[in-house]
């Protein structure tokens, strides 16, 4: 009897220890997020104190001691512009791929093609950067940038700068290639989640595949596809290595993105490039940490939006054909 009781007691003991350990592990993510924000804020405090909001709106960048000036605006703009261009290229392609995989492809080739597209997601950023730097940049410059510059350079200011290969457009296109797998995989899941009844209703009326997609699948999946695109945008914003290798790494006012063929810079790439040069006791260091904090807030905002949209969609229920 007493031994049974002892065993029970011991088990109870271990049980609660396990529960406490698991709870701690669960709470760990909250602790880490708070710690990351706290650490980044306290270490960039100096720059906020010195420059205030001018740090976000300024465009000068000079780490030389005595003449220090730090403004993050060109890099914020660079991050947003490259990500948005990438999104404009990647979203139509990804939705096309998702449509192919969910509506058009015969079942037999669905799996291999989604596998290949997902392989793109497994290739690390640094290899995209290497490929972009030594293969894509040259092909892209010779076949697209130079002809476009010659044809449109005098008329449209966006194409004004002489193309060199390391510029905002190259970085954006490689970024687009990198986020296509993310967006197309999520979009495919969203399209597959559209109830079969939606499609059948349209087929019954005599619609072709494209009409079925446009009239009954797309309206149903629209907000989900927007969520998937925002998720891709979040990816693009935080992307570091490939962008660093391709964007040209300009600093100061000339890094502000005014044209496709101009050298720019993004938040993540300026941090990656200059972090090890900065002495932890100078103003340079808190300025870079401040850029990290801004990057964190930008990506956090984008991702929270994406999650809220996607969650709302996956909780949605079946409905009738939703208009044209």
């Amino acid at each position: 009897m007493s031994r049974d009781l002892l065993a029970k007691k011991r088990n109870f003991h271990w049980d609660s220890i396990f529960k406490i350990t698991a709870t701690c592990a669960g709470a760990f993510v909250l602790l880490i997020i708070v710690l990351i924000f706290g650490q980044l804020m306290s270490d960039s405090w100096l720059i906020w104190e010195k420059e205030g909001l001018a740090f976000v709106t300024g465009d000068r960048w000079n780490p030389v001691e005595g003449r220090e000036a730090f403004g993050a605006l060109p890099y914020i703009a660079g991050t947003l512009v490259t990500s948005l261009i990438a999104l404009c290229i990647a979203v139509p392609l990804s939705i096309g791929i998702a449509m192919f995989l969910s509506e058009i492809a015969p079942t037999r080739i669905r799996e291999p093609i989604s596998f290949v597209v997902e392989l793109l997601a497994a290739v690390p950023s640094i290899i995209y950067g290497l490929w972009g730097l030594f293969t894509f940049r040259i092909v892209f410059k010779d076949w697209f940038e130079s002809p476009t510059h010659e044809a449109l350079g005098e008329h449209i200011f966006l194409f004004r700068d002489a193309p060199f290969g390391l510029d905002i457009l190259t970085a954006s296109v490689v970024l687009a290639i990198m986020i296509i797998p993310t967006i197309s995989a999520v979009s495919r899941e969203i399209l597959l989640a559209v109830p079969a009844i939606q499609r059948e209703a349209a087929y019954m009326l005599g619609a072709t595949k494209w009409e079925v997609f446009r009239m009954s699948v797309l309206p149903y999946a629209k907000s989900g596809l927007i969520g998937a695109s925002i998720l891709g945008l979040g990816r693009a914003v935080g992307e570091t290595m490939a962008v660093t290798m391709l964007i040209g790494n300009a600093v100061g006012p000339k890094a502000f993105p005014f044209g496709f063929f101009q050298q720019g810079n993004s938040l993540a790439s300026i941090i990656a490039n200059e972090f090890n040069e900065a002495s932890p006791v100078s103003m340079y260091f808190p300025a870079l940490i401040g850029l990290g904090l801004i990057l964190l807030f930008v990506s956090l905002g984008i991702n929270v939006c994406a999650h809220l949209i996607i969650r709302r969609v996956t909780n949605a229920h079946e409905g009738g054909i939703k208009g044209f």
Partner: protein
Amino acid sequence: MSSSERRLEFRNYFQDNLGSRMVTDKIVKIIVIACVAIAIIPLGSILVDVVRMGVEIISFEFLTALPGAAGSGEGGIANSIQGTFIMIGMTSAIGIPIGVLSGIYVAEYANSRVGKLIRFFNDVMMQFPSIVFGIFAFLFIVLVLGKFNLWAGAIALSLIMFPIIARTTEEALKLIPDTYREAGHALGIPKAIVTVKILLTAAKGGIVTGIMLSVARIAGETAPLIMTILGSKGWFRGTETAMDALPLTIWRLSLLPYDEAVMFGWGAALVLITILLVLNMSVRYLVLHRKGGSGSLGMFMRITGGKK
């Protein structure tokens, strides 16, 4: 619009114009297939380039020797390969227990509100830019210890790793029917034992898949390593020193102005991509050969699968 008006509208739309509608349909199909082709071309080009350049440089010496003078074309990248595997090991040692326990907490212990909250933050943290974890580890460990070291790198990478494992573990545990838990409790087995011995065993496939995906993800990470393990030219000399890893080597070599150095970079890229493809293929094998559908786990893996 009332439903009868709408019906009329559809009926009008679908009248007597089949020919032109079929043509539109064909054009759209061609566009869509072109989309797939455009997406696959870069992958093909990357793989062809990496293999073509990498095979030229890879030899026994390349895989087993320390690097020679920069740009001399001598030596190898053995220390980077060693570093990558050490980083994977140390990161897993921190990330896997936390991730699995966190997944267990959300799936088995948390009430639905707390569970939702933690799941949400895991999702959010999974999308943080990886460079932020590097900055954090630098401030938190490198500055405090006063030197670049492997633990800082491992901690930065494990912060990328554990939310992925936590989410896959949670999804895998949720797929197990409640009868398993009830049977365990009916036998008087304490909850901890039920969880570890019955549920984890049943969810093994899903959890291993999550772990391997997260390993594939961290093995290619570069940005956090720049700020934590810095890179070196020697063998592993303890966890308190700087160390090299394959992504770091590729970055450093690709920026050097010597063709030989760049070729070494391609070689390192081939080694890295081989490691990652083997991991991804094994994941696919595991998923395809596991009993039961992948369900939400499948969607989740596609969201998280690989990056950077």
